[in-house]
């Protein structure tokens, strides 16, 4: 399965996005940020890449600040 990852500046933002995605029934998981990606915030959100469009739309509508959305 292919995954995507959302990186944040703050864990508070990660928790907010996770809640929003889960309320839409999306499968996602908060994980420790992979060291090679960023050291900004210790928590990242992993999701299934097929949901990338929904994830991006949620980031847009909730105005939650993210550092990066990437495929892993």
């Amino acid at each position, binding site marked *: 399965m292919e995954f995507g990852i959302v990186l944040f*500046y*703050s*864990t*508070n*933002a*990660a*928790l*907010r996005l*996770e*809640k929003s995605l889960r309320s839409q029934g999306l499968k996602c998981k*908060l*994980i*420790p*940020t992979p060291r090679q990606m960023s*050291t*900004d*915030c*210790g*928590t990242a959100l992993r999701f299934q890449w097929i949901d990338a469009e929904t994830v991006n739309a949620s980031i847009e509508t909730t*105005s939650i*600040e993210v550092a990066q959305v990437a495929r892993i």
Partner: protein
Amino acid sequence: MKPVIYLDNAATSWPKPPAVLEAIADFYRGIGANPGRSGHRRSVEAGRVVNDAREAVAELIGLGDPLRLAFCSNATEALNTAIHGLLRPGDRVATSSMEHNSMMRPLRALEQQGVIELVVIPESSHGVMDLDAAEKALGSGARLMAVNHASNVTGRILPIAKLSRMAHRAGALLLVDGAQSVGSLPVDMESMGIDLLAFTGHKGLLGPTGTGGLAVGPGVDNREFRPLKRGGTGSRSEREEQPDFLPDKLESGTLNVGGLAGLLAGVQWLSERGLDSIRRHEESLIQRLIRGLEGVDRVTIHGAGSLDAQAGTVSISFGNLSPSEAGLMLDEEFGVLSRVGLHCAPSAHKSIGSFPHGTVRLAVGPFTTEAEIDRTLEAVAALAQRA
């Protein structure tokens, strides 16, 4: 021994809903990890508790972006964060004479250090703010208006929306001490025009002590804040400087997560019951108490307002009987727990003419009953005969 009638809810609410106590125990039993730091499942669950509490409080107080709410240990810390964090040399601040020392002392300290000019808006002897004097105190170019929402001494509610319009016209921000109102009275930052709201978790919100926060409205530039504390936030860990965004900028060090689990349960309890119905309950009890007190000879009621301007608190005194004596008798003989003295608000007592002896303060809560009010009135009547 007589059953206790707890009328000290303005100091801290009691009892707490059972769900609050269970939530605290459940957190330490089942989660117990540090939020936002470690990334493992328990750490994430702890983070969810904090986030849920943040969202729940933000919704209750009408703050659009929950991330603009920074938790801290109580309203005192929140007020200090706002006052020391935002005020700069030469700023003029208008405050009321009815403030608690958690507002007055940090303001007076900055005044004495020559940092700010402080204008105290006078009140009538009934504890009613003089709105013309408020306008004058703001003048043009005041930086901040800093006032309580409801007095911890008299229970009098200030017309916050009106004061906000006045403050904004003068170009000032409005800081509100919501210690006596959040969770007990309707508070909506957006419609009331509150820029900064300090609250505590252990009074109207029915959570444990050691919880509280500062809500920062969209009109305040968070880059202007100097945090009271700097330290670990779980974010921007590669940098040795404090992050500039909210809430991290104002939330250094591990939060009281167990306490916030309890606070969340308290807010959920309030939402299920409906804040309106709790307010109606407390309003009817305090009116019953005030009407009863009005009929007792040698008892003076200090600064009580009309129905819509009165929180669930009232201050009284007994002719020749000092508040401290009266409070002790109420406790020992009648099981009525009040708070006597100056209530950390010397300026307020000077305003209503009860300085330096203070008053006996009675404050109802969501669990207070009519029968308890009636028994309190009997106790007051018995004491008044000795005054």
